[in-house]
């Protein structure tokens, strides 16, 4: 399984902070993003992290990974 996390505004829009999905061969971050954020309601850009490191959409994911989606950061 892959743990998918949603943070900040996305957590509110998705309505929960994480869920698990099944890993598939050749799966990338973009595949997961498509699954959750294809609706127009989601403002772009949406950023992502794999196992707590920023990454880009083309990054491959596999069983046991933790993927997080979030809006551009606004700390500081």
């Amino acid at each position, binding site marked *: 399984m892959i743990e998918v*996390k949603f943070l900040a505004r996305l957590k509110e829009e998705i309505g929960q902070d994480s869920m698990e999905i099944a890993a598939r061969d050749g799966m990338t971050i973009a595949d997961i993003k498509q699954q959750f954020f294809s609706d127009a309601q989601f403002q772009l850009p949406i950023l992502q992290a794999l196992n707590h490191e920023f990454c880009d959409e083309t990054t491959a994911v596999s069983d046991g990974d933790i993927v997080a989606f979030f809006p551009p950061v606004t700390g500081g």
Partner: protein
Amino acid sequence: MVIVSDAAIDPYQLLANYEAQLSARGSVGAAAHFIGLMREFNEGDDVVGMTLEQYPEMTRRALDKLRLSLIDDFELNDALIVHRVGALQITDPIVVVGCWSAHRKAAFEACRAAMERLKSDVPLWKKETLADGSTRWVEQNTPGY
């Protein structure tokens, strides 16, 4: 050192204590510090409160990485980054960056770069409460340059 705090922070006490324990203090000629404070306005609206959300498993790691990048890139003696999370009130310190170096150029440049890197590389999000009780996510950062 990196600190993520869900309680109020005292920037000057933190900076003073950290400076006092620096090794090789005699080689430090410059300290440049930045403190971000919660304003009562943003993008033209009155703001009465703010919550800072983090990605707990990732925030500290990202701040550690940022701190090491500053020390490396600007040849600092040392750097301190402290960031608040959770509920903040007007005038509360949000972030503290302390940079110590031999000469002022490096400290100034590192401190300013720290804030830009922090605003792109660290998973933190601000949610403001406005005067009418409504809330909104801050969508973009004020330009730093």
